[in-house]
C-alpha cells in the first residue's frame, strides 16, 4: 500500500487526486482533518444525561473512574455499545418493515406496480411460518406471510418467527442465556430504556440484552428483508455485471441509485427500458439511459438484474466527481450529506426519496409504493432533462471490472448439485477433506480512515490463497468487485490448490457475492444448512467459519457483528475498539461470549493480525471437530469401502436437505 494512498482503489485514488487539484474536499480529506475523539472512540464518554458528558479516563479508570451518577467505565462502555446495536438493528429492521408492508400492499392489491415474482420462495417462506400454501391463491398466501412477518416487529411476548430456522443446539444456547428476541421494536425500545440514565448498570446484563437486540436484527429484521425482497423481485441467481467508475457512459444518461432500499431502484429497473423513456432520452441527445448503482442499493439490483455498480460507501462523492452522473437518488443509511453540497459543483441532481430522510440542498421526490412507476418515471425524466447540463468538468474514468454476482443461499445450494441434488454436501465434504480450510464472511463498510477498500483487498487475496472460501456482502463485496476479484478466473489464478479445485468443479469465483449488508442473513441460513447437512458442527458455533468486517464504521455493522457472535461465529472487526477503554467489556465480548455462544467480537486494527486470528479460529475449529489437519495441497476424502454388512447399517432415516430449485 502506498504511504499516501487514501484508497486502495486506483481509480478512486485518481479522482481523489483530481479533487485535490481542483480544491474539492471529500470524506478522505475530512477524515484527515477530524481525528476521532479519543475518549468517545474508546467508549469512555458518557452523554446519556445532562449532568455530563462525563469522561471516564485517568489511571485505573476501569476500577476507579466514575461519572456524576457513579457509573463505572464498564457500565458506560457497555451502554454506549448497546446503543450502537440498537441503532443498527433499528436501521435494518425499519428497512425490513418497509419491505413487509409493501408485500402486504401487493398481496391486497394496493401496490399495483409490484408483484410476487418468486412464488417458489413465497412458498418456502410460508413453509417456515407454518402457513398453508398448497392450492391457495398466491396473493392470499402472500397476505398471510406478510401479516405473520409484520408480527415480528410489534410482538410483545413470545419468540420471533424465524427462531426455528437456526439449528436446535444454537437455539438451546439462546434459550439458556435468555437472548431469544420477542419482538424487534420491543428489544430496541428496551435497549434504549436500559441505557437511559439510572437503569441497567451491570455490563454483562446490559450486553446480554445487546445480543438479544442484535438477534432481532439478524434472525428477524434482516432475514425478513432478504426474504421479502426475494419474493417481490426474485431470488438472485448468478449474473454477469461490471463494477467501478468506468461503468458511467459518456453518451448516455447516467442515473445512479444509492442507499439501501430496493423498492424504487427495482421500479426504475422495471420502467427504464420502456420505449418512451429511451425515446425521451434520445430526444435530449443521449444514446440511451444507463442505470447504475452505488452502496447497497447497487448490490440489490446487481444481484437480481446485473445493474453495474460504482462501488461502496466511500465512492459516493467520487462518483459525482466524475461529472458523469446526471441524477443520483438516495434513500436511507450511509448517505453522506456532503453529496448535496458537492453536487452543486457539478450538474448532478441529488434526489432524496425516503419520507424518513431529507438533506438540505437536495431535491426531494418522495417514494410511495402505491404509485411507484409514476415516481420512477418522473425521476428518470429528471435525469434525462439534466443530461444536457453535463459539462466536461470532472475526472472521467474508463476502468471497470467484470463481476459474477447473484449468489443467494438458494443458488449456493443449487450450484452444488442442480435441481435434483441441491445440498450443502459438497461444501461440507470439501471442508472435511481439507480442500477448503474454512469459510470467511467478508463484509462491512469501506472506510476513509484506512486506505479505503485496502483491507478488504488484502484479506480477500490472502484468505483465498490459504484455501478459505469467502462469502461477501455489502460494501465488502463492492470492494472485491471494484478490485476485479469477483470472477471465476480469480480462483484459477489466486486461490490455494484445494479451493481452486472446488471452484473449478462448480465454476464459481472464490469470493461469492451474497448481496447487500441486510443480506448477511443469508450467511446465517448457509451456516444453518451446513449444520443440518452434517459432518461438521451440529450448530453454527464450532464451524470453521469467521466473520470479518475490516473497515466497518456504521452502527449496523456492530449489530451484525453481534448477531453473528450470538449465533456462534467469531467475528473480527478492524479499526480501534469502541469499547477499548474497558477491559471488562472487552473480556465479555470475547471470552465470555465465546464460552457461552462459541462466537466473539474482536477489534483488531492490524490486517495481518486479523488474518492470523481468522486462520487460527478456523484451524482450532477444525481440530475441535476432529477434521483432517489443513495442509495446503494435501487433501482427499478418507475412503471407507462398504461391504454388505456396512450397507445394512446405513442410517435408516437419512434426511436429505430440502432444496427449493
Amino acid at each position, binding site marked *: 500500500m502506498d504511504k499516501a494512498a487514501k484508497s486502495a482503489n486506483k481509480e478512486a485514488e485518481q479522482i481523489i487526486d483530481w479533487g485535490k487539484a481542483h480544491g474539492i474536499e471529500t470524506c478522505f480529506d475530512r477524515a484527515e482533518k477530524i481525528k476521532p475523539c479519543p475518549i468517545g472512540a474508546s467508549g469512555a464518554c458518557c452523554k446519556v444525561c445532562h449532568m455530563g458528558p462525563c469522561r471516564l479516563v485517568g489511571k485505573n479508570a476501569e476500577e476507579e473512574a466514575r461519572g456524576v451518577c457513579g457509573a463505572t467505565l464498564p457500565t458506560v462502555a457497555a451502554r454506549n455499545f448497546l446503543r450502537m446495536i440498537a441503532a443498527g438493528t433499528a436501521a435494518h429492521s425499519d428497512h425490513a418493515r418497509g419491505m413487509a408492508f409493501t408485500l402486504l400492499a401487493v398481496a391486497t392489491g394496493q401496490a399495483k406496480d409490484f408483484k410476487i415474482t418468486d412464488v417458489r420462495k413465497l412458498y418456502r417462506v410460508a413453509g417456515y411460518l407454518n402457513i398453508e400454501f398448497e392450492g391457495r391463491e398466491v396473493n392470499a398466501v402472500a397476505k398471510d406471510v406478510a401479516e405473520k412477518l409484520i408480527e415480528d416487529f410489534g410482538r410483545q411476548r413470545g419468540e420471533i418467527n424465524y427462531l426455528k430456522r437456526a439449528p436446535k443446539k444454537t437455539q438451546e444456547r439462546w434459550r439458556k442465556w435468555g437472548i431469544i428476541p420477542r419482538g424487534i421494536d420491543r428489544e430496541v425500545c428496551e435497549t434504549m430504556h436500559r441505557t437511559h440514565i439510572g437503569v441497567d448498570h451491570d455490563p454483562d446484563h446490559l450486553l446480554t440484552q445487546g445480543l438479544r437486540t442484535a438477534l432481532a436484527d439478524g434472525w428477524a429484521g434482516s432475514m425478513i428483508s432478504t426474504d421479502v425482497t426475494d419474493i417481490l423481485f426474485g431470488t438472485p441467481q448468478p449474473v454477469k455485471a461490471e463494477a467501478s467508475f468506468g461503468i458511467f457512459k459518456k453518451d448516455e444518461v447516467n442515473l445512479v441509485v444509492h442507499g439501501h432500499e430496493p423498492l424504487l431502484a427495482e421500479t426504475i429497473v422495471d420502467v427504464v427500458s420502456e420505449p418512451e423513456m429511451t425515446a425521451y432520452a434520445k430526444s435530449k441527445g443521449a444514446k440511451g439511459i444507463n442505470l447504475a448503482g452505488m452502496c447497497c442499493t447497487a448490490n440489490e439490483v446487481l444481484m437480481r438484474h446485473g445493474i453495474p455498480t460504482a462501488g461502496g460507501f466511500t465512492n459516493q462523492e467520487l462518483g459525482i466527481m466524475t461529472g458523469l452522473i446526471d441524477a443520483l437518488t438516495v434513500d436511507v443509511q450511509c448517505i453522506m450529506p456532503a453529496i448535496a453540497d458537492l453536487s452543486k459543483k457539478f450538474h448532478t441532481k441529488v434526489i432524496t426519496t425516503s419520507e424518513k430522510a431529507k438533506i438540505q440542498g437536495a431535491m426531494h421526490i418522495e417514494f410511495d409504493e402505491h404509485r411507484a412507476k409514476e415516481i420512477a418515471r418522473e425521476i428518470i425524466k429528471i435525469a434525462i432533462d439534466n443530461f444536457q447540463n453535463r459539462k466536461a468538468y470532472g475526472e472521467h474514468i474508463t476502468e471497470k471490472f467484470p463481476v459474477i454476482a447473484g449468489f443467494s443461499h438458494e443458488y449456493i445450494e443449487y450450484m452444488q*448439485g*442442480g435441481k*435434483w441434488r441441491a445440498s450443502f454436501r*459438497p461444501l461440507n465434504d470439501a471442508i472435511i477433506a481439507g480442500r477448503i480450510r474454512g469459510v470467511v464472511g467478508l463484509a462491512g463498510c469501506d472506510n476513509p480512515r484506512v486506505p479505503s477498500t485496502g483491507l478488504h483487498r488484502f484479506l480477500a487475496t490472502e484468505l483465498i490463497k490459504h484455501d478459505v472460501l469467502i462469502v461477501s456482502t455489502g460494501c465488502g463485496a463492492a470492494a472485491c468487485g471494484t478490485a476485479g476479484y469477483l470472477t*471465476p478466473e480469480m480462483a484459477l489464478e489466486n486461490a490455494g490448490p484445494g479451493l481452486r479445485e472446488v471452484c473449478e468443479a462448480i465454476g464459481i469465483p472464490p469470493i461469492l457475492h451474497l448481496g447487500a449488508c441486510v443480506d448477511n442473513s443469508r450467511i446465517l441460513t448457509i451456516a444453518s444448512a451446513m449444520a443440518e447437512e452434517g459432518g461438521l458442527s451440529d450448530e453454527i458455533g464450532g464451524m470453521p467459519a469467521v466473520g470479518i468486517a475490516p473497515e466497518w464504521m456504521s452502527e449496523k455493522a456492530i449489530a451484525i457483528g453481534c448477531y453473528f457472535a450470538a449465533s456462534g461465529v467469531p467475528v473480527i472487526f478492524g479499526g480501534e475498539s469502541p469499547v477499548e477503554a474497558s477491559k471488562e467489556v472487552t473480556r465479555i465480548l470475547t471470552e465470555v461470549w465465546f464460552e457461552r455462544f462459541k462466537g466473539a467480537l474482536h477489534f483488531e486494527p492490524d490486517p495481518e493480525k486479523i488474518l492470523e486470528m481468522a486462520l487460527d479460529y478456523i484451524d482450532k475449529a477444525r481440530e475441535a471437530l476432529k477434521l483432517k489437519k489443513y495442509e495446503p495441497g494435501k487433501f482427499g476424502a478418507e475412503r471407507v469401502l462398504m461391504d454388505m454388512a456396512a*450397507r*445394512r447399517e446405513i442410517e435408516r432415516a437419512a434426511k436429505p436437505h*430440502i432444496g427449493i430449485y
Partner: protein
Amino acid sequence: MSKLIASAAIRGAHTLVKQAEELLEKTTAEKGKDFTFEFPDTAFYLPMIYAMTAFPVKTLGDMKVALGMARELLHDEPEDHLWKPYLGEALDSGMATLFAEEILLALKYINGLEPAKDPETGFVYNGFITDTIQRNLGIQLVDGTMPGFAAIIGAAPNDDIAVNIVRELQEKNILTFLSGNVNGNSVTKQLLRNGVELGWDTRIVPLGPDTEHTLYALDWAIRASLIFGGKKPGDYKEHLKYQKDRVFAFAVVLGELDDIIWTTGAGAINMGFPAIADTDIPVIHPTGVCIYEEVDKELDHGKIVQRAIEQRGLKITIEKPPIPVAYGPAFEGERIRKEDMFIEFGGQRTPSLEWVRMKELNEIEDNKVIVVGDGWKEKYEKGGQMPLAIVIDAAGRKMQKDFESIIERKVHHNINEAQGLWHMGQRDLNWIRISSNAKKEGVTLEHIGVIMATMTHHRFKSIVDKVQVTIYTDEKDVLAIQEEARKAYKERDKRLGSLTDEAVDIFYSCLLCQSFAPSHVCVISPERLGLCGAYNWLDGKAAYEIDPTGGNQPIPKGALMDARYGRYTGIDEYLKKASGGAVETLNLYTIMENPMTSCGCFECIIAIIPEANGIMIVQRGHTGMTPAGMKFSTLAGSVGGGTQNPGFMGIGRNFIISKKFLHGDGGIKRIVWMTKNLKEGLKDEFSKRAAEEGVPDLLDKIADETVAEDSEKLLEFLTQAGHPALTMDPML
C-alpha cells in the same frame, strides 16, 4: 478442467432433447398422441421420469409433457471467460438427457427398433431390463454375491483388453452392462469375437450398441429405490440419496468421449454413480455429489477395474479356491453344451451323488482331498462319462447335524462358480459337467475336492473347523455310498417334517435386504421360509452360528398371543427395534391383518380376490394378467418397500405347501387362482396337503391363467368346480 465436461454435458443434452422431440413429433404424426406405450414387463412406466417426477408416461402425448420437463432443465453452455457456475446446470442437463434418452428408446421400441439387433451378426441386445429380472436378482443384490454394477461404455483398444476387463469384473462378482461403441466397435463385439458367453447368467449384459442404451442400466438402478427402497415416485431427493448410498454402480468409459457420453455421465452422476475413463480426460475430484471422485481417469487397463471399484467406495471380498480356472458367482450361469463338454457325471447316465456328513474333529484331516478308484486318472483323461460320489466330511465345535443339508445345498454353487464346471440337481440326482476348456486349463477331479474344502470353509467359517473330501469313482463304491447316503437323506427329511413352529422356541430374522429395503424384516419360522425362497429356518440358524452379528438374528418367539393368526410377543418386540419403528406388530399366518412386509424380491405374491372370497397367487416372471386386475409387476409395486399391506403379501414359493399357510384365513382352501407354473411345480406336495385338508381334488378346483384372467370368468369357473372358498366364512 470441469468446465469442458459441463459444456459437453449441456451441449449433449440439447442435442438429445431435440432428437427426442423430432422423433416424437414424427411418431405422433403417424400414430396419434393417444397411442399407448409401456416398456416390456414393468409397473413403473418410464421408470426414470416416473421416479423423479411421479408423472406416469403412458402415451405419446404424455411423452411430450415429459420432454417439456426435460427442456426446462436445459441451460446455456458456460462462456469461455467470466463464466457463470455450471455444475448444477450440468447435472440438470444430465437429468434432461436421461429423460430424453428414455423417451428416445421408448419411441424406438414403438418403431420396432428395440431391442437393437446387430445388422452384421444378428446379435440381439438385451434392451429394456424387466421388473422380473430385477426381482429375480433381488437376493443376490443383498447377500453380497452381486455387490456392484459396472456400465462399460465404448470399446477397448483391443479384444484382449476387453476380455481381461470383463473377466476381472466377473471375478469380482460385478454385474456388467455393455453399451456404446467406438466407430462401430464395442466391448460387446469384442467379447463375442472371443467366444465369451454373454447374458444374465454370466453377468455380462449387452444393452445396446449406442451410448443412449446405458439408460437401460440407469432405469434398472432407479427401480431399486422404487421396488426395494419403497421410495415414493416424485420423491427425487430420496431416490437419488438411495442410489448414492445403496446402489453401487459406476461407469467405465473405454475410448474417446463425445458430448453424448459426457451428458449421459452427468445424468449418472446425479445418481451418485461416478465414471472412470481410459483416456486422458479432465477429472472432477471434489466429493459430495458422488461419495468420492465424480470423474477420474486410469490409463492402465490392468488397474482400471480396481480403481473404479475404489472410486465407488465398494468393498469386495472374494474367496477363490486354488484351481486353474476363474471362479465366482458370475460364472455360475455358464452352460456347457455337449460339444464343449469333456466329461460328465450323473444325470441318469452314471451313478452320482453328493453327501455331507458330520464327523468328529479327530476323525478327519483338514483340507485333505482323497480320490478313490483304480486307475481313476486314466479313466478321467479319456473323458466321456464316469460315476462319481462326492463325500464331504465336516467337523467343528459348532457343527450340528442340522447343518449337513445346508452345507450340502451349497455344493451346487461351489461347483458352478468355477469357470468351465457345471452342476445341477442335488443329492443322488445330480449332474456335473467339466468343459474341454477347463480340462485344457488343467482341471482334474482333485480340484472338485479342493473347491469343496475351500468353499465350505469360506461359507461356513466358525461352524466348520475341518473339512475332508473323498471322491469315489468306481461304480461299486459309488453305489455302496449311495445306499448309505439315502438312509441319511431319509432321516433328514423326517427331521424336517418334525420341525414345526410349535416345536422350537427361537425363530430367525433375515435382515439381509436392509441394505436395500431399510425397514423390511423377514421373520423365518420352521414352517415359513423367507419370502425370497432362499432362506429357511435352518439357513437362518446356521447363518447365525456363522456370524452372530450378521443378517440373521434369533428371535425368541415368546408367548403365543394368537394361535390362529400367529402373533407372538417376541416377534413384536423384535420387530419394533429391527424395523426402526416402521412395523409394530406382525401376524405370521394371515394376510388380512398386519401381515409380513416385503423387501421386493418375493418369489410369489398373494392377493385377495374379494368377489371369490379367496386369494390368488402369482409368481415372479408371470407376465400375464391376473384376476386381481393387475399383472405381477403392478401388484409387486404395491407390496414392496417394507410396508404392511393387508390383502397383499409377498411369499416364498414353498410356503404354499406349509401347514401354516394362511392358517388364520382358512389355509390352502382359500386359493382360488394360481398360475399353471405353480400348480405343476408344487403338484405332489400340494395334493398331499389338500388331502390333509379334506379336499383331495383341490388343485383341480383352483383356476389358472388358462381358464380365467379376470374375476368374472374366475367366479364362473369356481362355481362350476364347486370351490370350497365360496362357502367359507367371508374374508372381509
